[in-house]
């Protein structure tokens, strides 16, 4: 069914992706599809030891291989103007860029071979046959000594809380203390990290997948000692990032260095197995939840202690404790974190960093409490519904979580859930279980800018270096622009994905649409104001004297608010003013005062049905229903897609993903997509999303909260709880695999 396109109200329409036809026909060119003249190919050789140093590389063998142009090693790599170990801000993660022969983790790049063909470069890398001086690595969580980091996640405090935990627990009628473990997860977007780099003197053109083009440009300027304006980073299409492409990773920069070394345009694409190490991951965690509650289910204490793991050489700590800071009301809350180091690549942001791993533990523990109290799990959550943000006491800018609980429960049929486990079977004798969990993610904003131009032909151009990584920026930013400009969508051209455009912020942290959308909206308003100024100060215009506040933009015309019959086309205003176009910029950023006053979060409720074979332990999630509230929904179709992707990843966290490190070598044994499982379509025959109405007057002028990460939270816990309900077995070591259910 074709979607309607209404003038002046694009926001809210479930439009299909504007970039869809290009993607399905192959016309969309991703970074690795770019082929400058003279392009040569680079392949990384990576370390097979986790700790020590490289003592030998058979350069002669590699260089003698037909087609090989150069072998880049620490001995000949182009010098960098700034050490990649220098940390001038917490997000300048240390990168292994062939600065010395040290090996910090298995999979670390130790050389790059450049050749005329990919096959020759691949063979050249294999011929290097590295020799090592190897030390026994530390791999296990907590094995390298446990310490308290300065901060966790994206600069959140290591500990936070309120009230008196001891008093809270003393006052409790029921207490639950349980320890949960989550596994290491490795980002595996369809598109691996890659770069196509071309130098022209001291100017660099780089095609690379990046969730933050301006941040990338600034970091590269530092490394290569050139002004940021000499660098153009282009990424029109990005095949999935999930946090791993927020900041540049070693493979992307090594490609640029190889281009500098050889004086040729170079393409470097990470091999699938090389995704398991150099480009980040989610740390495994060990989380202890300590809950106390009165007989009626009211929490008296909520403690959440997390141990996560970072690399031996840099800091990133999975902030699992964030959920308990924002979600449930309790007079006493304690959230603390500890870290340990291991000889692994540095972990980094992965979809709902902290919240995803924390949520599964919190939601599992709540169900353990519900069991202890013999209370329905949904009733327990409603009993502890936070009317204000628990620790800060701030009011929420908006919170439609009650409606999420109710609408999800109704759709799922939650009220027919028997309280006891192992109480449902299907006609084949499979155990059936129902579980639920609460979704929560902050409604953050970064800083971004956009430029809007109205041209004499009545069309408009919107420009911002925002990024579409699949979430739909190509479509939703155009929708926002069309409404702000009073134009139909087909009159609006959008340019994004190019660092020569105004800074579009970061497609990450569920902030992309809120930030760049706000900037686009502001730019549209600003350019309309300029146009209005031209018209209302021109005696020849029918709008003369209306004043800026007195006109509205609609259907390509400005009209007097008090007399819409008096109007003028954009093009006529510009023509009379003798201008080919008019342009203005707009900013997108959180408003400090309202962000101080209000707690801003998106919420949801996820309900899961699982079936479990009673003898064989195999699990299948047969139904997921998610009801989410995240302010104004710019495009319901694309938002559903985001939620569904999130929920599927929640399933993946609950049942599948587990990087299996061999503790002796430090290598990941299942570093391939045959063995590192993510769900397939057959794993989830039914998924439903309910978009719950929510109006937020505070979060930003358009009332937009992010939706990218919300869906993964709540889901894994709902599935873990459903598995318990089906089997009576509480698995506290995530993922839940069949061997843990054989009783």
């Amino acid at each position, binding site marked *: 069914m074709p979607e309607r396109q209404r003038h002046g109200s694009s926001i809210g329409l479930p439009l299909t992706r504007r970039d869809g036809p290009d993607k399905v026909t192959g016309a969309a060119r991703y970074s690795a599809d770019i082929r400058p003249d003279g392009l040569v190919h680079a392949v990384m050789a990576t370390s097979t030891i986790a700790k020590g140093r490289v003592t030998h590389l058979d350069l002669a063998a590699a260089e003698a291989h037909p087609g090989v142009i150069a072998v880049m090693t620490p001995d000949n790599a182009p010098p960098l103007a700034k050490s990649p170990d220098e940390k001038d801000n917490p997000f300048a993660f240390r990168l292994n860029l062939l600065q010395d022969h040290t090996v910090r983790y298995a999979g670390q790049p130790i050389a790059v071979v450049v050749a005329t063909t990919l096959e020759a470069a691949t063979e050249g890398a294999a011929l290097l046959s590295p020799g090592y001086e190897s030390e026994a690595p530390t791999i296990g969580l907590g094995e390298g000594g446990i310490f308290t980091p300065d901060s966790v996640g994206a600069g959140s405090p290591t500990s936070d809380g309120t009230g008196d935990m001891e008093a809270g627990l003393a006052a409790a009628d029921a207490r639950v203390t349980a320890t949960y473990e989550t596994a290491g997860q490795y980002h595996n977007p369809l598109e691996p990290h890659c770069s196509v780099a071309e130098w022209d003197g001291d100017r660099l053109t780089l095609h690379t997948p990046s969730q933050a083009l301006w941040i990338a440009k600034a970091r590269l300027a530092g490394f290569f000692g050139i002004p940021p304006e000499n660098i153009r980073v282009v990424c029109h299409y990005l095949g999935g990032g999930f946090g791993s492409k927020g900041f540049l990773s070693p493979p992307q920069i090594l490609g640029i260095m190889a281009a500098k070394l050889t004086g040729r345009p170079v393409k470097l694409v990470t091999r699938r197995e090389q995704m398991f190490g150099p480009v980040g991951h989610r740390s495994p965690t060990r989380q202890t939840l300590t809950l106390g509650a009165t007989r009626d289910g009211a929490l008296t204490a909520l403690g959440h202690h997390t141990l996560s793991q970072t690399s031996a050489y840099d800091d990133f700590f999975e902030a699992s404790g964030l959920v308990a800071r924002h979600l449930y009301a309790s007079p006493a809350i304690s959230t603390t974190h500890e870290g340990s180091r291991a000889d692994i690549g540095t972990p980094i942001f992965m979809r709902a960093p902290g919240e995803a791993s924390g949520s599964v533990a919190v939601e599992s523990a709540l169900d353990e409490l519900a069991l202890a109290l013999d209370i329905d799990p949904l009733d327990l959550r409603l009993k502890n519904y936070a009317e204000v943000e628990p620790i800060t006491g701030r009011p929420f800018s908006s919170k439609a979580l009650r409606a999420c609980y109710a609408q999800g429960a109704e759709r799922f049929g939650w009220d027919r859930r028997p309280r006891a486990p192992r109480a449902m079977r*299907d006609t084949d004798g499979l155990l059936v279980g129902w579980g639920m969990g609460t979704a929560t993610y902050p409604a953050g904003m970064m800083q971004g800018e956009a430029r809007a131009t109205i041209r004499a032909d009545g069309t408009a151009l919107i420009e911002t270096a925002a990024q579409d990584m699949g979430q739909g920026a190509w479509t939703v930013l155009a929708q926002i622009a069309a409404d702000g400009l009073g134009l139909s969508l087909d009159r609006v051209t959008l340019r994004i994905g190019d660092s020569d455009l105004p800074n579009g912020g970061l497609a990450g942290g569920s902030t992309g649409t809120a930030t760049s959308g706000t900037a686009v909206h502001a730019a549209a308003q600003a350019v309309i104001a300029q146009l209005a100024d031209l018209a209302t100060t021109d005696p020849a215009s029918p709008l003369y004297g209306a004043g800026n506040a007195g006109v509205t933009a609609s259907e390509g015309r400005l009209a007097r608010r008090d007399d819409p019959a008096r109007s003028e086309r954009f093009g006529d205003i510009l023509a009379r003013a003798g201008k080919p176009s008019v342009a203005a910029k707009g900013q997108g950023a959180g408003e400090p005062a309202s962000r101080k006053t209000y707690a801003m979060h998106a919420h949801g409720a996820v309900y899961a049905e699982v079936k479990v*074979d009673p003898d064989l332990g195999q699990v299948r999630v047969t139904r997921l229903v998610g009801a989410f509230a995240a302010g104004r929904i710019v495009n319901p179709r694309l938002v559903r897609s985001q939620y569904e992707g999130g929920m599927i990843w929640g399933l993946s966290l609950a049942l599948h993903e587990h990087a*299996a490190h*061999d503790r002796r070598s430090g290598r990941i*044994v299942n570093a391939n997509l045959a063995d590192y499982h993510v769900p*397939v379509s*057959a794993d989830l025959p039914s998924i439903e999303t309910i978009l719950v109405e929510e109006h937020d007057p505070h979060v930003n002028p358009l009332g937009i909260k992010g939706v990218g990460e919300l869906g993964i939270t709540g889901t894994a816990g709902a599935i873990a709880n459903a598995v318990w309900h089906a089997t009576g077995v509480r698995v506290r070591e995530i993922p839940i695999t*069949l061997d843990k259910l*054989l009783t």
Partner: protein
Amino acid sequence: MKSFDYVRAGSLAEAVAAASAPGAAYLAGGTNLVDLMKGGLTRPDRLVDLTRLPGLDRIETLPDGATRIGALVRNGALTRDAGFAGRYPAVVEALLSGASAQLRNAATTAGNVLQRTRCGYFYDPASACNKRSPGAGCEARGGITRTHAVLGWSEHCIATHPSDFCVPLAALDAVVEIEGPTGRREVPFDVFHLLPGDTPERETALRAGEVVTAIRLPPEAAGFAGHSRYLKVRERTSYAFAVVSAAVGLRLEGGTIADGRIALGSVALRPWRAREAEALLAGRAPSPEVFAEAARAALAGATPSGDNAFKIELARRIVVRALTLAAAGTPGRMPALPASPFATSPTAGASHHA
């Protein structure tokens, strides 16, 4: 990747001659070999492409009632042959439970039988592996061993054979037809794959230059068609190798089991025929007790090779379940999720409160 010669063989004799050079490997569907080459795990000097050989892509019924599956019959084509599916439903169920439609359309009969283990240490060129490098040691021992062998393993190798297809072939007494430098010969299926012993680098009964030309199912194999199942437990609903699987067939006469067949998959370096367990079935009426007894016998010699003791109990339960399902009769239609515990009956999906 390493450069190699590519030879497209026009006849079997040409293929055998071309492959007698050291460092040669046969190429058919390539779904396993090419992956191994890309990973640097196999580095052949010469590929002898068999896919243009005439006459090897046929499914034939022989005069004695046996069925011969040509070596180049694609897995997908075999699943779509209605006559074959009617006679050997468990073979088709096994094939359909493996890989993906795209892979099945590329993979061949002989290629499936000859596929290499999925042991993570075999697949990691930096790990010691006696299969890849005889005498190097087995780094899987003491490592991540959740899915490794529980039967027939040795201290030199604890890998498993991953094929689904091979499990019912072993149960049904298939025969491997071979051609090579010294002529034609045949090898019974359940000894075609070699247990590791102290020579895990020797994986099959094939000798240098020999090529599998067909797999033959004997006339009596069709006698199990009415009570025949393949059941595969895996870590996700589709597109995963088996944790453990079982192929069973029962020939029932007057309420008793005249002949029973049991083979297990992913428990050993060969599809594991459980003849002692089969002997316990013969002459007995199907019952939970008999099936449990057979399951115990099938795993009698099993020992964990690492953190995989659960596979032994799981295998027992799969044998019981597969026998139970087979006794109930082969479904008239292939389940939507072949070999899955989640699609044992056409009504799968309905749920009710117990």
